[in-house]
C-alpha cells in the first residue's frame, strides 16, 4: 500500500518535473535534431518555397516519441513560432534569422507547428 503511494508520488513528481522542463527538453531535442541531420539554410528555403510539409520527413520513431511526450505533457501551448525561433537562436543563428526576417517563412513554420501538434494529439 505504501509502495503504491510512493509510486504515485514519484509518478506525479516525474510528470511535474517533465511538465516543467518540457520546453527545455524540446529545445535540446530540436537543436540536436537540426544538428544531427545537418539541416541547412538552403534546404529550409526550398521547403518554404515549395510549401513542403515536414510531416513526411518525420520517421515513425519520431512520431511515436512525440506522441509519448504528448501523453506526459498535455499542455504544449508554449510551442509557437516565437518559441521555436528562440529555441534555435543560439545554435542555429542563420535559421533563426531566416524566420525572423521572412514573413513567408514564419507562416510556413506556423503551419508546420500546427501540423505537428495535430499529429501529436491526434486532432
Amino acid at each position, binding site marked *: 500500500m505504501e509502495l503504491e503511494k510512493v509510486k504515485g508520488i514519484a509518478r506525479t513528481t516525474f510528470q511535474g518535473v517533465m511538465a516543467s*522542463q*518540457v*520546453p*527545455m*527538453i*524540446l*529545445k*535540446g*531535442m530540436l*537543436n*540536436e*535534431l537540426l544538428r*544531427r541531420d545537418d539541416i541547412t*539554410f*538552403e534546404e529550409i*528555403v526550398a521547403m*518554404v*518555397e515549395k510549401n513542403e510539409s515536414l510531416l513526411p520527413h518525420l*520517421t515513425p*520513431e*519520431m512520431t*511515436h*516519441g512525440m506522441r*509519448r*511526450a504528448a501523453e506526459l505533457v498535455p499542455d504544449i*501551448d*508554449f510551442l*509557437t513560432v*516565437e*518559441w521555436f*525561433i*528562440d*529555441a534555435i*537562436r*543560439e545554435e542555429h*543563428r*542563420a*535559421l*533563426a*534569422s*531566416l524566420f*525572423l*526576417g*521572412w*514573413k*513567408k*517563412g514564419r507562416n510556413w513554420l506556423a503551419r508546420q507547428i500546427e501540423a505537428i501538434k495535430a499529429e501529436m494529439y491526434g486532432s
Partner: protein
Amino acid sequence: MKEWEAAIGEVNTNPGDGDELLAQARSNTRRKQIIRLEEEEDAAHRARMARLNKETVVNQNVPVPGETSGGFKVTGGLDMGHINYQDLMQQQIADREALRQEAAQAAANQQQISEDLRQRLHTSEMDLIKSSFGAQMQMLNKTIEGNTSRGSFIQEYNGMMEVVKALGMGHPQASDNMSIQLDLKKMEFENTRELRKMMREDKQADREFQRQLNRDADEREDKKANLEIKRAETAAAIQAEREKRSMWATPFETVGMALAKGLMDSNGGMSADAGQPRHKQKRSGKKLEVGEGESGVTNCPECGEPVAIAPTARSAVCSSCDATFPIDRISVGKTGGIHGA
C-alpha cells in the same frame, strides 16, 4: 682373236658376226669398184660416139673434086649398134641404191660396234672411279672415326680438312675461304645467340614488369577492399551509434540527453513563457544590397554573426543582436552578391 680385233686391241662382244660384217664391207668395196669401172666404160663409150658423130659431119662438108656445085647425095647406113641409155641409167640407179643401202647397213653396224665399245669403255672407267672412291671413302671413314668427339666443332673441322688435304682434294685457297666463311658463320651464330639472349632477357624483364604491375594492382585492390571494409565497418558503427543515440528510437535515453542539454541551456531561462521574443528588434541604419530573388547568409554588419536573407524578404534580422537591415533588391548580375551598405 681375229685380225680386226687385234687391230683395235679388244675382243668383240657384239652378238653380230664380225667376219660376216667384214665380208659385206669387202663386197661393198668391190661393188663400188665395179660401179666405178662401169661409169668409166660409159664415159669412154660416150666419148667415142661423140667423136664418130663429129667425123661424119666433117665428111659431109668436104667437096668432092669434079663434082658440080649442084651438090650430091650420099646414101647408105651406118650400124652403130643398139644402145639403150634408159635401161642403162635405170640399172645404174638401182645399183647405186643397192650400194647405198649396203653402205648404210654397214655404217649402222659399225656404229653399233662403236657404241658397244664406248659403253664398255665407260663401264670400265666407272668401275675404276668406284674403286678409287671406295678406297678414299674407306680412308675418310677411318680418319673420321679416329677424330670423332675429340674436341669442338672447329677442331673436328680442322681434322676433316687435314684428311681432305691428305687425300689430295683440299685446295689452299678454298681452305682459306672456308676458314673465313667459317669465322663469319661463327660470328653470325654468336650474334644470333646474343640477340636471342637479349630477346629472352627483354621478354623476362617485360614479364617481370607485368608481374610487378599485377602485384601492384592486386595490392591496390587489396588496400581498396580493406578500405572499403573499414569504411563499411565505420559506417555500420556510425549507423549503430546513431541508432543507439536516436532520441526517437530510445525515448527515455533521448529524453535524458535532451534533459541534460536543456538543463545546461537553462541559463538562458528557456521556459514555457518564452512565447514572446526576448529582444526587441532595432532598426539598423545599414542596408543590404541583394540581387532580385537571391538568398543566402551573410555576416551581420553590426555584430558579425550570420544573417539570413530570404529570397523574397524585404528585411533581414540578426538573431544575435536583433538588428534589422532593409534589403535593397537590385538587378541580378549588377553587383554579383550580397553586400552590406
